[in-house]
Structures are given as C-alpha cells and as structure tokens.
C-alpha cells in the first residue's frame, strides 16, 4: 500500500500506526538508490509539498519535503537566486518519471559539480523537521545560517536516506545566482595530466565552480578537461585569462554552451538511461583518483569520468555477478574514499554492499544511532546497511 500523507499530522499518524517497515520515498525519481527494502507499505512524501516561507532578502526558504526541486528552482530564479549545491537530477540515470523532491535532496545529500566551491546539500541545509520512529515531530536547526544550539541532527539527517525518519520540512540557505558563466576547456589530456591541471586551477584564487575531466568517449570522442567560472561578466573574462596562464591555454565555452555541458556533467548524462550498466559513484582525494581508476581497470574495462577536480569518480561497469564490487572496494581501500553503487539491478543491490561498509566501531555507532531514532526499525530499515 502507498501512504501519501498531505500534512505532518497525517505523516505522524502513518508512522505511529505502522507495525511493519515502511519504505520512504519522495517523488520516486531515485527508486534505484540504496538497498532494496522488504516493506509492504510505502510512505510517499510527494503530497506533502508547498513552500512555507521564502525570504529573498535573507536568502533562505523553508519548504515541505515533497516540494518538487524544479518548482523551487523556478521560484529562486525569479529572485535571481539559486540552490548553491546544484543538485543532480537522478531522473537521467534511472529513467524514472517521478520528479525529484527537496526532501529527498536533503535526505540523500545530493549535490552537483558546484559542490567543490559551494559545499554539499548538507552545507546549505540549515534546518529540518522530521518524524522519528516514535511518531514525534522533531525540530533541529532553524532558519539562521549560524546556529550551534544543541546536537546537529540536521547533518545527521542529510545523507541518512530516510533511515532516521521521514523529513517533513527542510530549510535551505540560498545564494544569488551569478550573472553569467563560462567554461575553459582543455583538450586531449590524459587522466593524470587533466587532474593535475584541475588541481592547479582549483588551487588558484579564481574560484572555480566546476572542475571535471571527461576522458575520450564521454560526451564526445576526444578527452576534455573543464573549468567553470561563474561571476559578473568582467570577472569571468578576467579570470578565464588568468586561468589560461595557469593551465596552459584552452578554449572557452560561452554561457549557453557552458550551462548545457555542466547540466550533462551534473546529471551524469554520459551514463544516462537506457544505459543499464552498473554505476558507481566514488569520492576520493583528487591526487589518488587516477590511481584508483587504474586499479579498477586492471580487473577489466570501465567507462569513467571525474568531477570535483578528480575527487568524484563516476564509473560505469558491466553488471556481471557483483558489478565489480570486489575490485572497486579493494581500490577504494587502497586509495581512500568511499564508493556507492548508485545503479544496479535490484537483486544485485540486495547481494552486494551498496554503501561503503563502515569500520566496525562506526557500524556499531550507526546501529545505536538508528535505534535512538527508530528503535522498532520501522523507517526505511536496511536502506543503507542490511539490518540497520
């Protein structure tokens, strides 16, 4: 059965009434994300929508969890503002029809290329309201940017994939939208040089807001290394010029081209549905990213590209028995970081770890924390780790 509360009171009611696990979803755009759940009932938040307030002068809004991201982006754009962290739209890789909701963006800590300069969703998320396993509505954070009052459950909720309780409201800080953007593209670099150039550029004072490398075959035949600058027009021109000195040339994509290309990077268009290969998202240190990919390649071919100056690697592999989980986990263990199996058939996601398995003491804490929110394991149990 699908429960679709339209108010927080109904949401609380649904949780209180539940005697068996509930699968929590937002708009249903990311059904393929996380471990599959054995839940009879689905708790959908898509009808719990609507903006509660938006104060452009304070650059903050609060919305109910089911509010579509697109609606909010539209609202912000009208006031020349934006979500700083540029959330990816998962419809692209899952080919799903459901629209992404702001609650899911918060719960899954979804960020895009601009994460490198402006932080992740969790960095802009300043308040949440959620319902815990006791069926209580809980507030954490608030509407002001600086707030250290009490434990930061906001951060804990961001990236908990609903396992600590469905969010009912989220409050984000936003930023003015830069008046224009442009991208510097370098051509023909191998991975190592490309990452080197990206790191040099990101380590410059020119505030790179996107740093990606697309090897040959990713959105084009030849390798491209991309650096985005967003600012007022004069600054964009000036900074591109300075950047060229640092990375040794490159040509410029204008605002429209830049915007279109970064949307593709953001939404991982290179591996978009109907491509059904297994898809991994790996966070690591830029200086070790190339080595990490090389290690995986030793066990068989992969398609890949880098975002976040090399700190984020997207890897597409044949599904096979384990979607190369063993190779990838070994490479991550050697290089540091964490890997998430973002797309794979349901049975495979039930068999292999979707999220990086935490160390034993962290796993113990994960269990204890989960129990402190949801002792009866009603809320999305097993979404992240089996039995939690």
């Amino acid at each position, binding site marked *: 059965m699908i429960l679709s509360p339209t108010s927080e009171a109904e949401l609380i009611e649904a949780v209180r009434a539940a005697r068996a696990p509930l699968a929590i979803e937002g708009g249903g755009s990311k059904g393929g994300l996380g471990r599959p759940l054995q839940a009879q009932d689905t708790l959908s938040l898509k009808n719990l929508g609507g903006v509660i307030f938006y104060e452009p002068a304070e650059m903050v809004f609060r919305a109910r969890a089911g509010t579509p991201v697109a609606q909010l982006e539209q609202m912000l754009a009208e006031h020349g503002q934006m979500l700083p962290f540029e959330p990816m739209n998962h419809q692209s890789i899952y080919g799903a029809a459901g629209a992404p909701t702001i609650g899911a963006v918060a719960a899954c800590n979804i960020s895009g290329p601009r994460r490198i300069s402006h932080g992740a969703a969790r960095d802009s998320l300043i308040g949440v309201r959620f319902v815990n396993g006791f069926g209580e509505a809980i507030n954490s954070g608030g509407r002001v940017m600086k707030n250290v009052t009490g434990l930061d459950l906001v951060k804990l909720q961001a990236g908990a994939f609903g396992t600590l309780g469905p969010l009912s409201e989220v409050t984000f800080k936003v930023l003015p939208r830069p008046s224009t953007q442009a991208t510097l593209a370098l051509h023909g670099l191998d991975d190592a040089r490309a990452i*080197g150039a990206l790191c040099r550029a990101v*380590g410059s004072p020119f505030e790179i807001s996107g740093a990606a490398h697309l090897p040959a075959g990713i959105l084009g035949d030849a390798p491209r290394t991309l650096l985005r600058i967003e600012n007022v027009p004069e600054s964009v021109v000036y900074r591109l010029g300075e950047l060229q000195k640092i990375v040794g040339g490159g040509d410029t994509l204008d605002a429209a081209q830049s915007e279109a290309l970064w949307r593709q990077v953001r939404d991982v268009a290179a591996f978009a549905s109907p491509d059904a290969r297994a898809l991994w998202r790996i966070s690591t240190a830029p200086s070790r990213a190339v080595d990490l990919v090389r290690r995986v390649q030793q066990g068989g071919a992969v398609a890949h590209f880098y975002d976040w100056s090399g700190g984020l690697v997207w890897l597409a592999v044949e599904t096979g028995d384990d979607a190369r989980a063993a190779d990838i986990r070994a490479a991550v263990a050697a290089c540091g970081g*964490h890997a998430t199996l973002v797309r794979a058939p349901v049975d495979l996601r039930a068999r292999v770890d979707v999220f990086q398995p935490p160390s034993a003491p962290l796993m113990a804490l994960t269990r204890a924390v989960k129990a402190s929110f949801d002792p009866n394991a009603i809320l999305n149990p097993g979404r992240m780790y089996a039995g939690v």
Partner: protein
Amino acid sequence: MTAIAFPKPDPAILARRDEIIAGLAALVPPECLVTSEDERRAFETDALTAYRRLPLAVVLPRTTEETSKVMAFLHGAGVKVVARGAGTSLAGGAIPQEDAVVVGLSKMSKILGVDFADRSMRVQAGVTNLAISNAVAADGFFYAPDPSSQLACTIGGNIGMNSGGAHCLKYGVTTNNILGARMVLADGAIVEMGGDWLDSGGLDFLGLVIGSEGQLGIVTEATVRLLRQAEGARPVLFGFPTSEAAGACVADIIGNGIIPVAIEFMDKLAIEICEAFAHAGYPLDAGALLIVEVEGSETEMDAQLQRIVEIAQRHGVSTVRESKSAMETAAIWKGRKSAFGATGRVADYICMDGTVPTSQLCHVLEKTDEIVKHYGLRVANVFHAGDGNMHPLVMYNVNDPAEQEKAEAAGMDILKLCVDVGGCLTGEHGVGIEKRDLMRHQFSEADLAQQMRVRAAFDEGWLLNPAKVFPLDGRTIAATSAR
C-alpha cells in the same frame, strides 16, 4: 555567581581519587598528569570565569593511543571526562566538575601533513586555529573559519563548538571546512570519520560530532580543508551616525544579493574600546561602524565596493575608509579580533551569542539596549553582522554579586529575544553551561530527548562533559522517553 547549577559531585568517585590517579599515573609520564591542588586550580575554568570547578585531575596525553588508554581506563572506572583544548570557551564548555578528569589536548600540537593538490591538511587536535593558516600562508593558502580567538583556540575546540568567525559569511563555519577526524570514544575505541575527500560516506558522523561540545568523544586529529587566498582583500570601514542605520545597511547589503567576505559591526562603545587598543583608525565620531571586507582582483574589489558604498549612502554613511596597506588591514582586524579582550580593560563582561535573521538586526539591537538599561548595566555590541550573529557584551563588575545576577538575567532576556524573533541561542560559542537551562526555550521536550538519545548512543553512561548542553534533569527524561 551561582545561578547556573552544577551536578553534585559523586562521593564514591571522590573517595576513589587516589586510586584513579594511580591508574592514570601508570598510563602517562608525570609531566602529563596534574594532580596537586595548586596546579589543578589553573584548569578550573575557561573564558567564562564566573564559574569554576576544581577537577579531580588533569591528563595531557601526547598521542591518540595515549588518549585511548586514558579513556578506556576512566570508562572502566566510571569517571567523568571533560575535554579541554585551549580553554577559551565563552560558554563554559571546558569547565570541569569536581568528580571529573580533564583531558587536555595541549600537548598534541603537531602538524602531520599538508597536501596542496588536494587542498587538505592533517593536524593534531591541539594545534591552534591560526597555526594552521600560518603554516600554509607562505604558499598562498589558509584555513577559513577564523574565530577572534584563533590565535589561541585549538582545532579540537573549534570542532567541539563548531566555531565561526568574521570570514565565515562567505566560507562557512567549522562544519563546512573539516574533511575528516579521528576520535576516541568514551570507552577508548578509536574511530576515523571522513578522510581527505569530500563528503564522508554513510551517516554524517563528522557533521554530528562537530558542535557536540566534547560529549561524543575526544577528537585527537583532524583533516581540514584548505582554501586558496584571494588575489587581494580589502577591509573598508563604514562609519554611521547610529546603530540603527548600520544595522539597516547590513540587511540591505545582504538583501541586494551581495555577499562580501565579512561584515562586522561595532557600536560606539566597542569602537572606543577597540581603537584604544589597536589604533586601527576606527572613526571615533561614528555611532556605529561596519567593517566590510571585499576580495578578488583590484577591479573586482572596486566594483563590489562601489555597490556597497551606494547602499551605505542610502543609509546615511558618514565615513568610508579603505585600508591602504597590509599593515592597516592587520590593524583593522587586530582591533576587531581583540574586542572582547580589550573590553576587559573597561569592565568584566559576559558575551551573548544569539543569531537572528538579518532583517531583525535593528529591532534586536534596540531591544537589547532596552533590556540592558532596564537592569542598569551597559552593553557593547561587536559582532558578525552579515550572518546575524550578535555578540552583546553585557558589562558589569564580577566582584559584585548583585550586578552579576543582573548581568546574567539581562543575558538570558537577550537570548530569549533572539529565539523569539526566529533565531537561536548560540551562533558559534556553543551552549556549554551558560545556555544549558535555556534550551527548553528553543527546543521542545521531544526535540531535546531525541538529541539526548543520540548523545547516549555514543556515551551510554553520560560520562563525557555531562553538565553541559542539556538540562541537568535531561538524562532521566531521555531514558524514560525512549519507550
């Protein structure tokens, strides 16, 4: 001052003091253990000196492993632990208890590694905030959060309090700038959270630990994110006839979508106090001052400044003075960052730390003044205006108990006001003991109980800094609410 209660020391622990000290002495060399009363005395308080409690003993471990052994022992012995960095907390976060052992990180002050390509740096928890930036300044990098106490406060304490600073308007606070940390749990287990990459996998324990005021574990190492210094930075002084005008100007700057690196506010009294110490050229004739820092290339700074000046003019700005040299810039910031200390020349003070929506700044400044006057005291305001983080310094005479009570009452009224206009009790200094008993003003019982259950998930026995953050009856409430 006795308005804020501490729990009664556990007589059973006090009775076992010798045994506990003997146990610690077996784990660390003598120079890492402080036991004599005279010497323990120096650890009885932090920067909230009105409250003091003599600890059972002080341990200063030198490594994570030593910390782990100490923690395991104390856990086994059921002894409470208060983590201490530099002891600069303004909220009493590092004040001990008679039946607690202080674990100080001051001997762990090594820089462990710097990586410019990955823009990260690994340090021990006792490294001071400024030492991090200083270590990489020559290479053009810095660590962004810059509490005014950055000269002295440790990165461990910054993590404990999720500290902010003047430049956090653009770059975020501690939680936005830490990539990883190593922590010793209550029972001595060592956990590694995050790493030198972006976003820790799994639950965001790092985000939870930052700001947890030493209640979830003792951080012994951290990986911080380094940023590249801007091409140039220029603080500009804007003098206004009144606080109201300056406050309105702040709201207007932000409202126009301009985010300078910093917008700092000083009222007349604060200007006088800071100028006397730093000789920074603050306009003594102004009723209020904004220090606005812009950065970028020369043209970029000029362009942004021009827009800010136009806005300031609409609010009747009386002086605009740009820093013309590195020395002037240093003096301007030195004055600002010494504000609290310099206030000590004039009077004792308590420093409030509520945050309010920027649109409420004027209203809250006005009300603050009323409140303080009502108690017959004086107030100096010097704070991070860009993000609405107020710091009214309520001035009083600490040797006069009646004044002290009034000062505390005024402080409480101000903080409640901050919450009531949509803000919060503390923007960067933390709850500590100071705001502990106001937590119910901001949170419901259920909110608090949820936080306390999370806390208990790390520290079932409530041994870590137990007198802080949560109301003293909280522990029992948390236990019973977990039906």
